[in-house]
């Protein structure tokens, strides 16, 4: 792959430079524009007021580099890895780079948008271009000073060298560089040779503008090296970083009493006891303003937390607010059906048995294949709702005044959150300012802005700066959930071959979408069909780490293992055989690469010792593609005291170039253990419209003693990097389910596995 490939990015659409009064050079760019290339930048930098920049590179006269990153950090490590990409192309020593998060800089940062799981993939080209362009400008400035051609100069680790061996540091030339025209990159299109910006009308600019060239991956010195989390010192010493830690003078705390059951409405409440608690300031009723706003904004999901009135206790401290809420006596009426796990199970099975499906992909004729088959296998797989359980409970700060709205807190989508608040309060969105804190986990929960709307509605009512804080019970029992889903998969076998595959999905409150129907095994079979159906529920559903595939992977991989058993062929060989059929396919809908899938399969088989039988160790294999990354995993299970213990998971990953191996391994290990944990242990059910678990005494998350050791191996290549926050999670539960079959002799069709094993008395 060429390292100077045309990127299609017009750097001038997201890049501006200027000199600093205090000395040095400032390069402004919009990180998210850079990642999307769809936002127009104003022409005149002097009129920008920085509203359209959210990221800056500052190079001081001393050559020190400061990268101001606006990026929301939920633990995925992009605050470290994205600046690494810029620093690589800028060619500076990482120890001379300081990364600052612009969380509380109201002057410089606006319009921040969460990067999401696609940050690295989308940012790769633009971030490299940004760094390389800055480097070229510095080289051009040095060349101009020496009176030589820029092509005779090179830059390395912050030092520019010419053909005579003379050197200049970046800091020596920043002043001149800041005045230069932004140079053209090799292969890029759409650039004009002349800037419209008056500041760039330097006569010499055109003559010295050397072309920007991206590095060859073999020359990388920062990308691909283990780099520590840039916030590590603050985290290990307990510095304020999170929304829960945010505080301003005069701020009060609020805890919200929401309906205990989904489908209930507030009738009345008695706040006498709550108001008698010292430290409780007031009790108010909210909900009128936020109605319907979230549902309007959420498309596929049924997030409608704003649909009822709620009671809010305002207090001097978090604890008093929570205490006050417990003292409220509220009456609720049932405005709708009180759902239960029993009703969900019944209704989902009815959906699967019915005919009301939307077909997402249809190849050939599965019904014909089933009719002509020697054997037909049909299985149903079931999963519960799951709460996100971010360790930092939902919270948000809001300060609503006559003229402006100031929002601060942990959110993955600040832009849509601010827009929803503007909508709710009837304000101009330009008067709503939203800042991000580091997030104590996201997992999809912080995509939704219900808690931002609540905070803003409360502050609007009391006209004070307020922090809305949730307790764990609020979070777990009145939140957003991965929907309960059931899959029914049917396949046909004829003449020792898999001839047809039909997957039906039934879900509560929203179905799989987008590209998922074109993941493996799509394209490998002549007769293949994916159908979906869902029904509306009072229970709020939403994206949860690796949406849909987090459960689909287990259903599909477990089913394929059963097919291999029926065909009496090796499960790994069956995958490899199927992949041959998609090679060279002209079907442009197919999302995965057969070659890259083969690579991860072969690598995991070799590294896990899958072909070598081990006494008392049961190995389950899975291979999956999602979120643009190919992953194969082998889970090792041993039986200890008749209990299955997942000892180890071997992982092979092809995510292209690994930007920060230290951070990448952390994401992979976390994703695998999270996948094992939720598949094995986490159960969540409803009775009378109410979750039966509200805190960690009755809800099980995986803990240290149950966590397998994760051993990771990367497929080494120089392909553009893809994301790692999600793709290792889905295959983990799949591999465990197959290892459990080998360990116990029984297949499990329902998550969590431990409950299924106990219910069926497979384990004691």
């Amino acid at each position, binding site marked *: 792959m060429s390292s100077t490939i045309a990127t299609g990015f017009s750097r001038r659409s997201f890049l501006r430079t200027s000199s600093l009064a205090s000395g040095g050079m400032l390069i402004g760019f919009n990180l998210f524009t850079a990642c999307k290339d769809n936002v127009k930048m104003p022409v005149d930098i002097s009129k920008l007021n920085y509203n359209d920049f959210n990221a800056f590179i500052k190079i001081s006269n001393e050559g020190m580099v400061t990268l101001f990153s606006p990026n929301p*950090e*939920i*633990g*995925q*490590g992009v605050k470290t890895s994205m600046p690494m990409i810029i620093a690589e192309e800028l060619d500076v020593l990482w120890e001379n780079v300081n990364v600052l998060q612009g969380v509380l800089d109201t002057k410089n940062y606006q319009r921040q948008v969460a990067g999401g799981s696609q940050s690295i993939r989308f940012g790769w080209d633009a971030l490299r271009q940004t760094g390389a362009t800055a480097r070229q400008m510095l080289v051009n400035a040095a060349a101009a000073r020496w009176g030589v051609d820029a092509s005779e100069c090179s830059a390395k680790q912050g030092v520019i060298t010419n053909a005579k061996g003379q050197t200049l540091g970046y800091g020596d030339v920043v002043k001149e560089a800041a005045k230069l025209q932004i140079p053209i990159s090799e292969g890029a299109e759409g650039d004009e040779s002349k800037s419209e910006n008056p500041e760039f009308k330097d006569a010499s600019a055109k003559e010295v503008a050397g072309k920007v060239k991206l590095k060859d991956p073999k020359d990388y010195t920062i990308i691909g090296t*283990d780099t520590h*989390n840039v*916030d*590590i*010192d603050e*985290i*290990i*010493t*307990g510095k*304020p*970083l*999170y929304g*829960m*830690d945010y*505080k301003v003078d005069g701020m009060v*705390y609020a805890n919200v009493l929401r309906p205990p059951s989904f489908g209930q409405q507030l009738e009345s409440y008695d706040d006498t006891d709550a108001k008698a608690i*010292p430290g409780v300031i007031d009790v108010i009723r909210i909900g009128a303003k936020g109605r319907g706003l979230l549902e309007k904004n959420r498309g596929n999901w049924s997030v409608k937390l704003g649909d009822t009135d709620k009671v809010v206790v305002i207090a*001097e*401290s*978090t*604890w008093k607010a*929570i205490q006050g809420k417990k003292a409220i006596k509220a009456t609720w009426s049932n405005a709708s059906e009180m759902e239960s796990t029993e009703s969900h199970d019944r209704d989902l099975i009815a959906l699967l048995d019915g005919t009301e499906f939307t077909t997402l992909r249809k190849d050939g004729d599965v019904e014909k294949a089933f009719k002509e088959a020697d054997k037909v296998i049909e299985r149903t797989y079931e999963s519960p709702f799951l709460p996100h359980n*971010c*360790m*930092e*409970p939902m919270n948000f700060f809001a300060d609503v005044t006559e003229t402006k709205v100031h929002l601060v807190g942990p959110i993955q989508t600040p832009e849509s959150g601010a827009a929803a608040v503007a909508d709710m309060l009837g304000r101009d969105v330009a008067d709503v300012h939203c800042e991000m804190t*580091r*997030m*104590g*986990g*996201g997992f999809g929960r912080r995509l939704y802005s219900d808690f931002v709307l609540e905070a803003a509605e409360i502050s609007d009512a009391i006209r004070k700066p307020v922090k809305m804080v949730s*307790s*764990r019970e609020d979070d777990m029992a009145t939140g957003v959930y991965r929907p309960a889903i059931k899959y029914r998969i049917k396949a046909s076998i004829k003449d020792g071959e898999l001839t047809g595959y039909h997957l039906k999905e039934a879900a509560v409150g929203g179905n799989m979408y987008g590209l998922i129907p074109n993941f493996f095994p799509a394209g490998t079979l002549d007769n293949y069909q994916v159908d979906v159906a869902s029904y509306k529920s009072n229970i709020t559903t939403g994206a949860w780490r690796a949406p849909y595939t987090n459960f689909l992977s287990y259903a599909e991989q477990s089913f394929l293992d059963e097919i291999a058993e029926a065909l009496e062929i090796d499960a790994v060989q069956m995958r490899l055989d199927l992949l041959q059929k998609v090679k060279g396919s002209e079907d442009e809908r197919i999302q995965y690469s057969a070659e890259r899938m083969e690579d991860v399969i072969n690598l995991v088989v070799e590294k896990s010792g899958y072909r070598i039988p081990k006494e008392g160790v049961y190995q389950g294999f899975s291979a999956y593609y999602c979120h643009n990354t190919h992953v194969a995993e082998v889970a090792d299970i041993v039986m200890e005291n008749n209990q299955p213990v997942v000892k180890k998971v071997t992982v092979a990953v092809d995510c292209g170039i690994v930007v920060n191996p*230290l*951070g990448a391994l*952390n*994401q992979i*290990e*976390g*994703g*695998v*253990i*999270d996948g094992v*944990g939720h598949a094995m242990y986490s159960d969540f059910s409803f009775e009378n419209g109410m979750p039966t678990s509200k*805190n*960690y*005494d009755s809800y099980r*998350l*995986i*803990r*240290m*003693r149950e*966590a397998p*050791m*994760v051993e990771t191996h990367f497929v080494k290549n120089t392909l553009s990097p893809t994301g790692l926050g999600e793709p290792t999670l889905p295959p983990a539960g799949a591999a465990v389910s197959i290892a459990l079959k080998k360990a116990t002799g029984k297949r499990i069709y329902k998550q969590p596995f431990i409950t299924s094993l106990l219910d069926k008395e497979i384990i004691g």
Partner: protein
Amino acid sequence: MPTYKLKINGVSKKIEATPDMPLLWALRDDLDMVGTKFGCGIGQCGACTVHIDGTAARSCLLQVSQLDGKEITTIEGLSPDGSHPVQQAWKEVDVPQCGYCQSGQIMTASAFLEKNPNPSREDIRSAMHGNICRCASYNRIENAVVKAAEKKMA
């Protein structure tokens, strides 16, 4: 409201509170020491772990009225500058993902290593079992405790 004297990180602090006020909220809301985190409020997750006379304890379950004469240590007081062997091990292993639970993890690990300076991996897994890490950085937590033990022995 009664006044309570709390000795936190070697410094005596006075707070006005009802007797049942949990130490967690005294630290976070009244004393602006926010390194100790709120996770569950029922002693199940470990995010709020502090040391009471050197023993790890859940600050969400401790009432301010129970702490007279006790030495309370929080993450802010474990070392003045992050130089405690456990903090250094956490840094070298690069444990955190979101990082929210990590001060509680560090407090549990540091109290544990005082009592068991040369633990087996099995000992470590048992000692750390009460602290949830939702990002599941468990492998690194285990490795960091091993490394911290080596540092303390050295």
